[in-house]
């Protein structure tokens, strides 16, 4: 018996119903597929059918049932999709309202610069050493070839605690400490970041407390060529691949030869501007070959070992790199100032 009339009935009911939501689909489901639905009624007729035709009858009904399920399923999907689209349309929010204000943390710019420089030196095989800020005269001066009468030791320029003790004026005593601990046996590759002190009144370019990073390399056959390579690496990592360096002869008691190091002005790329006073160069640090008296005084034989040292001002690097005009900004910790370093690595 042909049962396709059921499908026609479904189609007719569906079209008549003008389906707009899923409720009607569900109603049709009950009407056709429910316990008392048309299919169930048809199935009930099974018993009345001769046993040899039952299988065929069953198959036919099942096929129709599948078609109905498939049809209604498909329609339900369509309706649900429409319903979802409508719901989404009504769920619009004002995206211009402000987001939450999370408290976002930042590292201090002096830490950022110190970390950047430390990282560069670590890739070159340097370890970090930290020395005390309250230092002996002997390590701060004597061991660094700064004799008792030297102007640098003037009481006016340093913060003394007593005649033997002072706040270190540079991170260089870390050199002496490291060398003395090594008992004349190289090689040494260290960097020493830390706070240092000078008896200066604070103004836009001076700070009684500031931060230095000292690097020291002592080994056999270390030359000024090695120093230059190291400086170039540092300059290019910090100020860009095109940065060049210029070494000018200078003087520090603890190095011989000594040099002041300039790096290509980052603002004008060396063309000359107001930042570099038209020279194209900006002075960034002091360096040199470790003075034989320092090597000797710290237990190294200057005829066997040589070395280079460099010292740089972290504040100066920070000011150059971030365009900070007043060194005191680095110590005031205005939260609006600090927040600007959010994105910095």
């Amino acid at each position: 018996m042909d049962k396709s009339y059921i499908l026609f009935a479904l189609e007719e009911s569906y079209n008549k119903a003008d389906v707009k939501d899923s409720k009607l689909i569900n109603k049709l489901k009950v009407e056709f597929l429910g316990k008392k639905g048309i299919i169930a009624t048809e199935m009930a007729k099974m018993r009345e059918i001769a046993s040899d035709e039952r299988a065929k009858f069953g198959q036919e009904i099942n096929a129709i049932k599948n078609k109905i399920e498939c049809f209604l399923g498909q329609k339900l999907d369509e309706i649900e999709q429409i319903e979802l689209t409508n719901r989404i349309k009504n769920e619009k929010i004002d995206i211009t309202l402000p987001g939450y204000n999370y408290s976002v943390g930042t590292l201090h710019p002096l830490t950022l610069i110190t970390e950047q420089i430390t990282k560069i030196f670590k890739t070159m095989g340097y370890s970090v050493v930290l020395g005390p800020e309250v230092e002996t005269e002997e390590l701060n001066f004597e061991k660094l070839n700064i004799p008792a009468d030297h102007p640098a030791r003037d009481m006016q320029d340093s913060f003394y605690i007593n005649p033997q003790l002072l706040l270190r004026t540079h991170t260089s005593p870390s050199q002496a400490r490291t060398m003395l601990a090594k008992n004349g046996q190289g090689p040494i590759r260290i960097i020493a970041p830390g706070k240092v002190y000078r008896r200066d009144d604070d103004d836009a370019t001076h700070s009684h407390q500031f931060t230095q990073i000292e690097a020291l390399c002592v080994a056999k056959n270390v030359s000024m060529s090695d120093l230059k390579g190291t400086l170039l690496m540092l300059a290019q990592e910090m100020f860009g691949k095109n940065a060049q360096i210029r070494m000018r002869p200078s003087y520090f008691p603890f190095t011989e030869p000594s040099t002041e190091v300039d790096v290509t002005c980052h603002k004008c790329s060396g063309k000359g501007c107001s930042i570099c006073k038209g020279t194209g160069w900006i002075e960034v640090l002091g360096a040199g070959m470790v003075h034989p008296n320092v090597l000797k005084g710290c237990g190294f034989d200057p005829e066997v070992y040589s070395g280079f040292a460099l010292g740089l001002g972290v504040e100066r690097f920070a000011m150059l790199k971030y365009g900070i005009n007043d060194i005191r900004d680095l110590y005031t910790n205005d939260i609006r100032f600090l927040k600007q370093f959010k994105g910095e690595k």
Partner: protein
Amino acid sequence: MKVSRLFLEQYIGDLKSISTQEICDALTSLGLEVESVSSFASGSNLVVAKVLKKDKHPDSSKLSVCLVDTGTEEVQVVCGAQNVDAGQLVIFAQVGSILPGNFKIKKSEIRGVESNGMICSLSELGVESKFLSEESKEGIEVLDSELYSVGDDPLVVGGLGTDVIEIGLTPNRSDCHNALQIAKEIAGFFNLKVEGIDPARINIVQSKELIKSSKCSVFTLTEFFNWNIEDKTTNSEWLLPSMGYKNSNSAVNLGNITGFISGIPVAVYDADKVKGNVVVRNDFSGKFIGLDDKEYSVELGDIVVMDGDNIMSLAGIIGAKEYAVNSTTINIIMEAAHFNDVSIRKTANRLQLFTDAATRFMKGVSKSQVEDSISSFITLASQSSLYNSDVISTVVQGDLKYDQHTIDLEVIKINKLLGTEIPETDMIKLLSKVGFTVVGGEVFVPKIRHDVLVWQDLAEEVGRVYGYDNIVAKFSDAEQVEVIESAEEVAIKKIRDILVSCGLSEVNTYQLTSEMTAKTFGNNEELIKLSSPLSSERAVMRTSIVPQLLEVIKWNVSRRQNNISIFEISNIYTAGREELKLAIALHGKTVNSEWQKLEHKNNFYSLKGLFKEVLSKLGFAETRYFLNRVHESDMIIHPGIGAKISLGKDEICTFGKLHPNIENVYKVNEIFVGEINLSKLLQQKVSSIKVKEINSFQGIEKDFSFKVKDDVEVSTIVKAIRQGGKKLVSDVVVMDIYKGENIEPGFKSIMLRVFAEDNTKTLTNDEITTLMQSIVVAVEKAGGNLIGKI
């Protein structure tokens, strides 16, 4: 140190073809840092003109109408100077001139009279007034007709427009306080010759009566008779001013010139004013009037040159006015000596009197220069016929002789240190450019270069003349060392990471603070005090980071920045101890969104949570440490809202709400601060991580509410739950603390969620019931009554 082109051209014959910029570049590469270059006087379109006629201005009593001849035309100009007169040679700024300060000269009408330019004074050309005579300060400059002609460029003829180069000398190059030495360096660089002066022979008369001080190694006096004090030959117009010295009488001028060609300052006295024996002493105290008309007091230890009981000069610093050479002087005494630099520095520092002489002695001059200065002075004086006596003799105490210093030329070592391959012959040439001679492998150091002592010093000489630019940059192939990270370094990094990710900003503050602050925030430690602080606000090393963080909060709050979460890691020093500490301070909110009525205000627990995170990041789980209340009498932390963290026997951290008394001082409320002693913490052992197997049997969670007395702490109840729950309780979470309706006064309700599990099996209903009963019993013993039923 100032040096002018005018001076350099006088001593280096062929310098004219070399630009000032080239000279500056040379100086820089030689290690003599150029700080600035300026013109002694400047202006464009200037010409030497003759005043042909001067008439009164018809409409002004102070102005004159002049007719000047510029060599190419006759021009009418209105002039306001009183000293202008017909017949004078003047500096005339023509229409179109631009004078210093971008002052443009235009054709104009002054009170109805046409004026086509300006007759200039020297100040209008930018000359500092300290170099000007009273006449020159008052009016227009009248030029010397023997030197200038109409039509000349007034800046060129007498050197008025010379470039002045300011050099910042490094301490080792005190030899370059001698301008002639700078000329020699420049000449060497450009392969030019320096026209030196032939030193005169000195007739030495030895004496043993001059020096009565250990701070003077050589002292000499040379007397000149019938000195021509008004002679102008030493007063070569702008030479001295362009080098920074005022023109004076011929004796003072010659002394100054000697200073910059020999490097040692010499003094001149009026010989006829000296009554007794001249002696150098340092055992005198008294007062005198200096050449600058100011009174100075001399203390024991200061080096003085005495005439009997009268001070002739504060040695090497300033002369006494009483002995000054002036226009009535007939005979002069010239003093050349070597004084102890440290002593001069002390005296100059005390008096804050840094004269040119003092500066030179302080920077260190060589004893060997004394002889040079005597012979230079005599030579120059005799060249200009400044005195009239047959034989000049010099009374000397001390040794004038110089021991020639030599150093072996270590070619290989020098190349190795510089990283160069300079052949010996080239190295000798390089050294000769800066005055070193090499004979048979021995380098003879010029006597003025007392900074050159060892072969490494020679390496610097070779390097700077060779040019540091020519040294090749190479990546060090020297032996490598293992990179070591200290526990401190690692810990600091971890702390920064965790705190920044929790929304805190790192700050950096000063270590020096006031004694009062250090005492208030310290623990009665012995302070590290500066012997001479710059201010009482920065007089001792801080004993805690906290007060500086409070300052930061105060600064920001007063600038309407109300949400502050900050930390600082720093070494803290007390006598005999250096400790690494971390301080945290919180104020205001951490998350907020006003329009959503959402905010999280910082409180005791936000701070506690931060310390928990820091400790856990460093490997210390909550089970490793315990909390105690701060002492009732604590001055910094609110006793009711504060805690101390102890690890083993060590108290490592105190934190909590800032004590109201301190809040009042900083005028900010609701601040939460804490400080942790990282040095102590890092001494504690951290056990390595051992992974606990994840329990595969499902556990249960059950909420309890207990009524407890107000002063019962949650930890007491949690502890009881853990005891009652035996080993089955895996976690207890505080869900709510409630006071108010339905809870009688003096009590509170604590709601807790208990997690329990057995890692060998799933708990049965019976086991769960037994467990819960056991928990309730245990809590009852601890003073908590179950609200409702299990």
